[in-house]
């Protein structure tokens, strides 16, 4: 396609001229990820790269221009990704705003809500946290009890959320609240946006088995929310929540693949080869080979499911299959990496060492809907097995 070729040339020239050298180096650790927000400490090249990309609308290339995107078609966005990969450009910005809230607002938000909230996400100015789970509402999310009262010109929010990712570093939080205590549990929930910079909102990090604290508890104590920040219809927040969860599942499920260094390469470096040129631990070699094959098949499946969605085929419930398989696979991958690293992995090391990653993956099949919940969804929505 000549149009795409011209676009590719334009993208290539622009990236060559505008991507700082430092932003073309592989990321060393999670600390190199740019999340944005008021509390984020940018390095100079990170800020430069983000501002330049945001000015082009390329932090969220497929979003409409008026909301901070570039309005690119899917093929154009693919060209942009490919050209960024070609020069090994880092992603200028990643955030829950981009992955989760953005898609939900684009589908359910009013024009005013999109104008207010999407551009600051695109520019990395506001960082969002997710307020879904509660101490007594985990897998049974719809039983949530955080209370939201109509006070005439505003809402008052009271309750507690848990597993709020990086809430201590976020500026705003999207929250599932109960607005009707008498209705059936799915029909009394609303989806509301709350500014965290107020006395009624406080957060406390939760220390995990990995020693890291990617999650917090977030407390709402007479927190104020503006009426115009209720997304979708009152008491129909569950629809928004489910839609957003689909995106969250895809995000978590996709974590096991990506630009990961192949397991076999890591193991060869750590353990070495025997005289016959095989990995010196033959049982591990077998496990890694099987896992790498499954990894290829999983990546091909993510590609196929995405292509089918573009072509209007397939089922949306496949996001549950990807979440289930991707997270279980990621756990398996980190077990193998622990096997490969041996005793050296058993010392606490840097913040992104293999032991901490291994421990962190145990949560992958719990967060965003457990593996068992995903299997329930596959059984009901795809295989159409009856409910009890």
């Amino acid at each position: 396609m000549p149009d795409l070729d011209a676009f590719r040339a334009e993208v290539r020239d622009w990236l060559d001229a505008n991507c700082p050298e430092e932003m073309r180096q592989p990321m060393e650790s999670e600390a190199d990820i740019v999340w944005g927000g008021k509390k984020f400490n940018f390095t100079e090249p990170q800020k430069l790269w983000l501002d330049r990309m945001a000015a082009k609308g390329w932090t969220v290339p497929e979003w409409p221009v008026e909301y901070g995107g570039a309005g690119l078609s899917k093929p154009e966005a693919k060209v942009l990704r490919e050209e960024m990969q070609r020069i090994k450009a880092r992603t200028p910005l990643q955030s829950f705003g981009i992955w989760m809230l953005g898609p939900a607002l684009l589908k359910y938000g009013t024009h005013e809500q999109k104008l207010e909230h999407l551009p600051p996400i695109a520019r990395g100015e506001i960082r969002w946290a997710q307020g879904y789970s509660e101490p007594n509402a985990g897998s049974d999310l719809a039983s949530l009890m955080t209370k939201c009262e109509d006070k005439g010109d505003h809402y008052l929010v009271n309750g507690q959320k848990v597993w709020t990712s990086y809430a201590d570093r976020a500026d705003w939080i999207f929250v599932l609240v109960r607005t009707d205590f008498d209705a059936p549990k799915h029909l009394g929930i609303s989806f509301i946006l709350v500014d965290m910079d107020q006395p009624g909102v406080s957060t406390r990090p939760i220390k995990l088995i990995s020693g890291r604290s990617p999650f917090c508890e977030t407390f709402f104590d007479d927190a104020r929310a503006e009426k115009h920040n209720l997304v979708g219809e009152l008491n129909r927040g569950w629809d928004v929540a489910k839609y957003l969860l689909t995106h969250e599942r895809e995000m978590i499920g996709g974590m096991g693949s990506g630009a990961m260094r192949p397991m076999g390469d890591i193991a060869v470096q750590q353990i070495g080869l025997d005289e016959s040129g095989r990995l010196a631990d033959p049982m591990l070699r077998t496990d890694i080979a099987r896992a790498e094959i499954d990894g290829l098949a999983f990546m091909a499946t993510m590609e196929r499911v995405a292509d089918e969605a573009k072509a209007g085929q397939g089922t949306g419930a496949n996001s549950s299959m990807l979440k289930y398989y991707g997270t279980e696979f990621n756990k398996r991958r980190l077990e193998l990496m622990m096997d490969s690293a041996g005793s050296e992995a058993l010392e606490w090391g840097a913040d992104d060492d293999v032991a901490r990653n291994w421990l962190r993956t145990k949560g992958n099949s719990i967060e965003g809907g457990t593996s068992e919940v995903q299997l329930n969804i596959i059984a009901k929505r795809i295989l159409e097995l009856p409910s009890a």
Partner: protein
Amino acid sequence: MSMVLNDDANMLKDAARGFLGKSAPVSQLRKLRDDGSEDGFDRQTWAAMAEMGWTGVLVPEAHGGVDMGYVAAGVIAEEMGRTLTASPYLSTAVMGATALSRFGSDAQKSEWLPKLAAGEAVTAVAVDEGRKHNPARVGVTAERSGNGFRLNGRKGFVAEGHVADMLIVSARTAGGEADAEGITLFLVPRNAAGVSVERADMVDSRNSASVTLENVDVTADAVLGEVDGGLKPLEAVLDAGRAGLAAEMSGSAQQCLETTADYLKERKQFGQIIGTFQALQHRAAHLYSEVELGKSIVLKALQTLDAAPEHAAMMVCAAKAKLGQVAQLAAREAIQMHGGIGMTDEFDIGFYIKRIRVAEALYGDANYHADKFARMRKY
């Protein structure tokens, strides 16, 4: 390349499903078995496949084929896997056509390809000699004699061997028994003097044979590709067959899953539809996930064979390994979830687990391919 079938492939899929479901369902295989069919496949069905162009799916148009490529060839194999249709399709239309169209001399192509496309000739690949697949281990010898070669030795597990008109035989022309170099491929007519073929009675009721070569004289024109350089083309031919088998197993696995899901919606125990039980729902949902992964890796392998056949080995290897695991899981789970009826010969599931076992072993099982994958990845 998009991982969605294009319109042509979708039309072919619909046509194949319609034809096979009506003209060659599992009951046909059952009848062939029960009648003790000598051919082991239905010649009328084979003729109809030829008429629809399936036998020429990988044959260039210049030689009378339709040249639709490996994705199309895989779509047909997948549908055959759903119905367990017995035919020499893989050995002939996939492997034979790959061998001749990619490595044949002009004379070999002109002689054989039109016959393959027309469904008038059946080929079989004779590669293995021991109980485990190992294409580099070749004990069958081909000694120079006059201006040709004299072949001696024995091959086993030759799919469609006893109905083949022409055998593609790997033989050693130089080196020791396990050397990669020194292997040569020969086109040996089934009726050549000294060739004896014995059909084996296989668990899947399909065709397989052992082939004994006793002072079989062939001319130099019978060499396919280069003398001593036969392993590379042999691997390419095997890869086409492996991808086809993976596609077939994918179809069988999908059918096992769908049949099982249907059964879970009908069968009642404890006063309830058993599909309401979470223990069974989770088994079925896990199986669904594995079957989806299988579909994806098969399509990737077939697309790679079309786009860059010289770089397809690793994807094909992954696909054959993955489908060996997935299809066996599907068959096992299907029996378990069907309960006692799944163990009866009257019910079709048994045909699936038996065919899948044979397809898994043919041209390298999941262990073989996982090992090969690791070797290709240098560990």
